[in-house]
């Protein structure tokens, strides 16, 4: 972003602006000629797709905020007014509602891409950490957004989730009171959640800027996980990746719009079309699908941890669950140091590949049991011991943490990588002839 040497532009207006503030030079450098490895597969589209979804959410959200009333007496009615009386209000709301789900779809695939191809490894640790911070901010934003329509799931979801904080000794209850603005979820909660739901997306934009900045310092990783060495290994970002990203984005949008127009409520819960009622608790309180794996981890802890043979409890089951849930995301922050294997891509690490795919399976299983009531009996192991969904969640949780804390450090030391191609160019040529 410094002045530096600059090639003049032919267009006089562009040149006038650029000689005073080199935005055109910047764009040219970062998005025009930016050298990008030429072996990307379609997994590399999801960064651009996530970016598009962020913009979609902000634009549709600002429009919704023009018609929404953040008051417990009006919120539900104002959303229904948007659906029925505002011109194309149903479209804007369904775009926003399903957009949240598809933003998470894009981000989950983007995170998986990063894990599979080792994009978190040196020198991209900070880039990865910014990504985890974005993910955390997204979760907070999505949770608060879900509260705004003030349906039954909004209200009870807010009650359950803010209640997590009471698990922490001493500071827990004051934190919860501050978060919800009183002693139970009510109008002050709705007001502050609306305020923060409007603020956080712009914080996300800020961190995305840092994420992209860091990316443009180190350059992109690629499916072979080897750094570009010569000009043969890279292509200018435009037109090669601008066009490829556009194609990928359009395919993604087709799936997204099928939901928006033909099954707009498939990913939501029917209870959220019942106005919030503090006197009636829904049969099963479940968060949105993108939180279910973490919800399952939370509920997996069922025993208090204390000093053995005494009555002293150090960590209650509730606190244990909350710590594990936060830990399941926090552990991503240290992933670059848990895995110190010199080879990045899972393509050349067969053992890591299997372990990672099992990790994906464990997350999907956690998602599945997270949506079911706790302790649903599945089958008998002995007369008295019944295997339940909680046991499934415990095993999957154990693998989730075992993957990071045991498997990654061990594989870092012991795994023998497959032979690597000499360069990206060589890998592409080899692939052209054989795959």
């Amino acid at each position, binding site marked *: 972003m410094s002045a530096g040497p600059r090639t003049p532009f032919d267009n006089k207006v562009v040149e006038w602006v650029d000689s005073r503030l080199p935005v055109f030079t910047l764009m040219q450098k970062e998005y025009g000629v930016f050298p990008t490895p030429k072996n990307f597969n379609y997994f590399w589209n999801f960064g651009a797709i996530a970016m598009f979804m962020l913009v979609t959410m902000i634009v549709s959200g600002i429009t919704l905020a023009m018609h929404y009333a953040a008051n417990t007496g009006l919120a539900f009615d104002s959303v229904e007014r948007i659906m029925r009386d505002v011109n194309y209000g149903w479209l804007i709301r369904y775009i926003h509602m399903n957009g949240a789900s598809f933003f998470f779809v894009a981000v989950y695939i983007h995170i998986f891409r990063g894990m599979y191809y080792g994009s978190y490894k040196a020198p991209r640790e900070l880039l990865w950490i910014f990504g985890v911070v974005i993910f955390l901010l997204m979760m907070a934003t999505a949770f608060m957004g879900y509260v705004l329509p003030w349906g039954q799931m909004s209200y009870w979801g807010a009650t359950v989730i803010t209640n997590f904080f009471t698990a922490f000794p001493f500071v827990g209850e004051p934190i919860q009171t501050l978060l919800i603005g009183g002693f139970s979820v009510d109008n002050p909660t709705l007001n502050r959640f609306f305020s923060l739901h409007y603020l956080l997306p712009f914080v996300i934009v800020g961190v995305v800027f840092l994420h992209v900045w860091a990316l443009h310092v180190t350059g992109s990783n690629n499916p072979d996980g080897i750094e570009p060495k010569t000009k043969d290994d890279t292509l200018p970002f435009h037109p090669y990746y601008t066009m490829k990203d556009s194609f990928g984005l*359009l395919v993604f949008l087709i799936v997204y719009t*099928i939901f928006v*127009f*033909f099954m*707009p409520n498939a990913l939501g819960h029917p209870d959220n*079309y019942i106005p919030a009622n503090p006197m009636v608790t829904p*049969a099963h309180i479940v968060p*949105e699908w993108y939180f279910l794996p973490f919800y399952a981890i939370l509920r997996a802890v069922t025993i208090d941890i204390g000093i053995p043979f005494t009555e002293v409890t150090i960590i209650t089951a509730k606190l244990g669950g909350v710590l594990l849930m936060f830990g399941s995301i926090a552990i991503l922050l240290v992933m670059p140091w848990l895995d110190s294997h010199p080879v990045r891509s899972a393509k050349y690490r067969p053992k890591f590949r299997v372990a990672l795919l099992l990790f994906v399976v464990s997350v999907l299983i956690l998602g599945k049991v997270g949506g079911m009531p706790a302790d649903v009996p599945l089958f008998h192991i002995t007369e008295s011991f019944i295997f339940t969904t909680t046991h499934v969640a415990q095993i999957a949780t154990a693998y989730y943490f075992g993957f990071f804390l045991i498997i990654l450090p061990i594989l870092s030391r012991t795994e023998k990588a497959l032979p690597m191609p000499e360069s990206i160019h060589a890998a592409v040529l080899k692939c052209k002839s054989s795959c």
Partner: protein
Amino acid sequence: MKKVILTSLSVLALSTAFGGGVSHASEGNAHPLPNVDWSFEGPFGTYDKASLQRGLLVYRQVCAACHSMKRVAYRNLSELGYSEDQIKAIAGEYTIIDGPNDEGEMFERPGRPSDHFKSPFANDQASMAANGGALPPDLSLITKARVGGADYVFGVLTGYAEAPAGVDILPGQYYNKHMTGNVIKMPPPLVAGAVAYEDGMPQTVEQYSKDVSTFLTWAAEPEMEHRKQMGFKVILFLIAFAGIMYAVKKSIWSKVH
């Protein structure tokens, strides 16, 4: 490369299927809901206007005695095929309390198309007092607010039966196959022949239930037909655009070795 696309698509499909499947598999119900063949089902489904009009009749003559529908306005009935004069006549049959006027008094006036459907009770408390302590829910969103949607409404309306042996039903309660817990406080609302149809359709509980469920689905999702029509245009456009971008991408990349 194809493998990668397939993998990412299947991850996408899996994650959505998981979400959708999971969040809905919650309510316990011993009897599976009937699977009615609705005109509005599927991507090409539209509302059957004659059925909507019959459903409105059933709602006004039966359901409206206890259930409000306060998010729907009389003017919305134009979507059912009624003319402006017909809507004025329907709205005019109701007495609306308006005000305060210049003297500070509330006053009564005939309903106008811009009014929302008149609720049978002044407030929830009055409604509960008149209905043995149970609150008949507002029906504006009922098909969106219940697992199973229109099938659920149809199921409850046709699901009254003799309680099986061993099931205790208290006075003022009724056994219903499709209600959660199989107990409902609403007496069986529909009786064959109670609502007179002018178009010769059978005046059975089943037909009444079907029509009123169709009407309630419209009340919950009045935008549905418009939404689906627009969806086709949007998706066709996206497919064409994606096809063009694929060709562009392919031609640009063909020179890369």
